[in-house]
């Protein structure tokens, strides 16, 4: 068949999901001639699973993407339906923002942003072949167009070799009934990429009018709702409610009677699924004693009657699904609009990549998102952004951009992927970061916006706003230190009512704020000269004062690690030459080729004894 030459790009992105979007936007905004290929023009920025963005740790990622100049936070704000700050009572380190979003609107908004972006071409095409050339890669589409690309970012999500399972039924498909990418996988294998199968799943969507909400617990958004983006000033009001229901003994009974019809339990699915996001039948089988499980009923948008059942994904046959969904309070007469399904797909072993998300053996080829073994929109977007920046930098001959663990959840996510690998779809969690109190969602701008500005993704104007905010924050901290509050009855009444000890002498405002029982709100009556500031500034100052000691503690740990990160390892070295290393360590080090001792110490299978061997070896070879 006759192919035709269709053009040249600096950066080509395969896939226009959450990873592909950020990758393409970053590359184009950094001045590269960029193309992003989507298998279906109506599936750009699709949310095939939950109609929400953010959540624990994922909210951090969105904030960080925004602080670096990415798009996800801004678009989520534009499409928000309801917003909640999770973990409010559990401390600032684990506060996480989550927004219910209008999924169609989100997709349309993102598509439009891509369309309007200069240097960027959005094309509907299935990439069927990728070949290495002298100057990069050559992509061929189903329609036989050939593109010559300096760099390529693979962001194929669950489309690559996608296969859907619903009970005994199984067929090749991408998510939401869109056709899969069937040919590209072979071509990637020919390039030598280590591909493997993962699986994930999604619950059914129900018709709103078929659900009886009258007896269900309502879950409302925060008032006022909090935006993701530092550029969004006002979100307006929450637009929808979510509802909570519970499964029961009858639900469990249906599952137990039909478990043999699950493709997973019948051994038909070979892909590895996420432990932390199990299908409902998995939850029943693994926690048999649990009498009930919680589920959330979430609207998919303002212009649709589809309702998402969070926590209820399944790969049981459609008839069984309907049967068990209908045992649930409120869903007794539910009408199913889309059935739940499991989807299996090809992804790569991320150990084959550098922290820039470039493949070690294939310069100029990058991976991002679910293709790299992660799960979740936010994880995907974060990787897309980093891959996009690095692809652009590569084209422009600039130094790679790597975020370290102590700067961000993004850095932690990528370091985990390329250092520890992923044996199941990787989800971000706050517990994955050892520096939680430093890497808070409220200070993402402080940590990353200067970097975003340096890269060139943060505008002059926004950077100026950021600097102003920092100055105000600094001034407020100074004011807290300088202001002395007299020991009036008014103050002591406040102190006593908050169950903290009264004072007999004047006390600095900062000391009062430091007390766990007190906050800005409590002290507003006695703090008369308080300036009018953005609530985020007050919040951040309060956190920094209250948690000062702990933040210092983590900062010290950061410094300790930085010492190990500063000890660089050679990029091309055969570790079998170091006899003192155990065999497993030699093998792992050769495979992962860590950039420094710090990264080496996080490889599973490399023991502290191996690290000391490396330290001594480094010292001897200086």
């Amino acid at each position: 068949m006759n192919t035709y030459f269709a053009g040249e790009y600096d950066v080509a992105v395969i896939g226009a999901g959450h990873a592909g979007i950020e990758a393409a936007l970053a590359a184009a905004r950094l001045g590269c001639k960029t193309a992003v290929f989507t298998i279906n023009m109506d599936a750009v920025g699709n949310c095939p699973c939950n109609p929400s963005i953010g959540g624990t740790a994922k909210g951090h990622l969105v904030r960080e993407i925004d602080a670096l100049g990415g798009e996800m936070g801004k678009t989520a704000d534009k499409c928000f339906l309801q917003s909640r700050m999770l973990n409010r009572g559990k401390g600032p380190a684990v506060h996480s923002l989550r927004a219910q979003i209008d999924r169609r609107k989100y997709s349309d908004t993102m598509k439009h942003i891509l369309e309007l972006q200069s240097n960027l071409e959005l094309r509907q095409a299935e990439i069927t072949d990728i070949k290495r050339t002298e100057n990069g890669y050559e992509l061929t589409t189903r329609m036989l167009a050939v593109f010559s690309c300096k760099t390529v970012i693979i962001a194929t999500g669950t489309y690559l070799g996608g296969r859907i399972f619903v009970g005994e039924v199984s067929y090749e498909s991408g998510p939401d009934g869109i056709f899969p990418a069937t040919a590209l996988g072979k071509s990637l294998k020919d390039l030598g990429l280590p591909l493997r199968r993962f699986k994930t799943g999604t619950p059914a969507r129900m018709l709103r009018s078929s659900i009886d909400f009258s007896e269900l617990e309502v879950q409302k958004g925060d008032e006022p709702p909090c935006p993701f983006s530092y550029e969004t000033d006002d979100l307006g009001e929450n637009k929808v409610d979510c509802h909570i229901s519970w499964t029961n003994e009858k639900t469990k009974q249906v599952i137990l009677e039909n478990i043999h019809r699950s493709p997973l339990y019948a051994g038909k699915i070979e892909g590895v699924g996420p432990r932390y996001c199990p299908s409902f039948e998995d939850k029943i089988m693994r926690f048999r004693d649990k009498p009930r499980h919680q589920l959330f009923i979430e609207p998919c948008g303002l212009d649709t009657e589809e309702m998402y059942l969070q926590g209820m994904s399944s790969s049981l046959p459609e008839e069984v699904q309907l049967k068990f969904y209908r045992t649930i309070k409120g869903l007794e007469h539910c009408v199913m609009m889309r059935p739940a399904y499991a989807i299996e797909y090809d992804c790569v072993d991320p150990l084959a990549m550098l922290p820039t998300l470039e493949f070690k053996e294939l310069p100029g080829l990058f991976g991002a998102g679910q293709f790299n073994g992660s799960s979740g929109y936010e994880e995907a977007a974060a990787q897309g952004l980093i891959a996009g920046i690095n692809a652009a930098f590569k084209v422009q001959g600039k130094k790679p951009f790597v975020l370290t663990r102590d700067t961000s959840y993004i850095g932690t996510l990528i370091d985990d992927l390329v250092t520890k690998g992923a044996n199941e779809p990787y989800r971000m969690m706050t517990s994955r970061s050892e520096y939680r109190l430093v890497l808070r969602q409220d200070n993402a701008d402080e940590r990353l916006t200067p970097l975003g500005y340096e890269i060139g993704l943060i505008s002059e104007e926004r950077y100026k706003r950021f600097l102003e905010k920092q100055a105000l924050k600094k001034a407020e901290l100074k004011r807290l230190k300088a202001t002395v509050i007299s020991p009036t009855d008014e103050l002591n009444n406040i102190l006593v009512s908050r169950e903290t000890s009264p004072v007999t002498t004047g006390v600095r405002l900062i000391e009062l704020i430091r007390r766990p029982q007190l906050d800005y709100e409590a002290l507003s009556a006695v703090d008369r000269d308080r300036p009018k500031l953005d609530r985020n500034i007050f919040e951040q100052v309060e956190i920094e004062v209250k948690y000062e000691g702990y933040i210092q503690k983590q900062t010290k740990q950061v410094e300790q690690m930085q010492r190990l990160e500063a000890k660089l390892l050679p990029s091309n070295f055969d570790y079998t030459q170091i006899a003192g290393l155990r065999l497993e360590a030699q093998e792992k080090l050769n495979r992962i080729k860590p950039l420094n001792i710090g990264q080496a110490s996080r490889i599973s299978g490399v023991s502290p004894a191996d690290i000391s061997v490396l330290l001594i070896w480094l010292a001897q070879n200086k």
Partner: protein
Amino acid sequence: MNKSTVAAISTAQGEGGIGVIRISGDKALEIADKIFISPSNKKPSQMKGYTAAFGRVVDDEGAVDEAVLLVFRAPHSYTGEDVAELSCHGGIYLTKRVLRAALQAGASPAEPGEFTKRAFLNGKIDLTEAESVIDLITAKSKSAARAALCVKEGAVRKKINLVKENLLTVTAHLSAWADYPEEDIAEVTDDMIFEPCSKAKAVLENLLSTYDSGQAVKRGIDTVIAGKPNVGKSTLMNLLSGCEKSIVTDIPGTTRDIVEETVLAGDVILRLSDTAGLRDTQDAVEKIGVDKAKKRLEQCSLLLAVFDNSRELDEEDKKLIKTASDLPCIAVINKTDLPNSADISYISDNISNIVYISASNGDGRNELISAIEKLAGTTGLNPSEGILSNERQRLAVSNALGSITEALSALSSGMTYDAVTVSLEDAISELMELTGEKTSDEVIDRVFHNFCVGK
């Protein structure tokens, strides 16, 4: 990594029945081939691991000594490398000559601690085990050896691991609770953190509290024998040490300098100093001795204040009693073989521990030893329960304890759990550094700094 093969004398240097020269490294057996000849002509490099052969050690000048060769094959050896051990006749001359033969044949001299360092680097032992090796080598008493062995076999490690596991359970629960706010995971309550932390705290406190008595067992207690001239201090010292160290005469002022000796009193090592008698003196030389003794008194961990049963207490005795009342002290009433003239009740009013002895005929020695053991806190000490063996371990435990205490106080002052978690994770990381599960570049250097050649 230094791939060289190293050799050293592994037994104590000095006269002994037997001396062991250890060669470790890739070329250990190759080197042994060159310097060891067995009657059967079977080469060491042909021998299997865990086998022995009798033969002769030779160097350029010919046969050096008869020796038994033990062959260990990697990784089944102390260092995890190929090891040849030559047991020859003892004595500095012979062992050195065998070592020289090994060095001539291509081995490099082992750095202090090299064998243990290699064992550590090859993953044969962990950090606490490595440290205990040095303790084992230098162990002065039975108890000390037992304590060192316990660390090596992981008694401290077991305790630390238990604490670590407890803390990990708490932090795991805290993480799940923070990461899954909408799953119905049990709410974390203060009690769920408080209880395991309190338990962990108790274990660590116990480890710390036995550290000092552990040190008494291991390193010994600085002990000063004091008293006015001629009450029998030197005789007492000789009684404890079992040989004539101090010059014993009945001329007051004989002991002018501080005589030091390490003796074993039961399970306790005493680093004894016999001091010049405390008295006002015009003799310039003796005066220096007296001043030194006074200074020594202020620094000691145990004072044995000696009084003469047969003489009335004078001003000097009373001065000593006054000094002694502020110090950990045992009043030793000497010369019980002579009739009593001293006012014992005056002594017992000021010093609670009193022991009666006759240093010259040995009466009361056992009573004295058990009084010392009691005061050193070693009576109830069971070394096999695991004793922290050095300052590094003590510091790590003490830091971990500090972090746990901090977590508990954060909890009670109403701080949020994310702050509490920071302290708990800090504690866990300290404990992991102690057991060598976590690396920081300083630890390794700190540990291996102290090792002696040989082991």
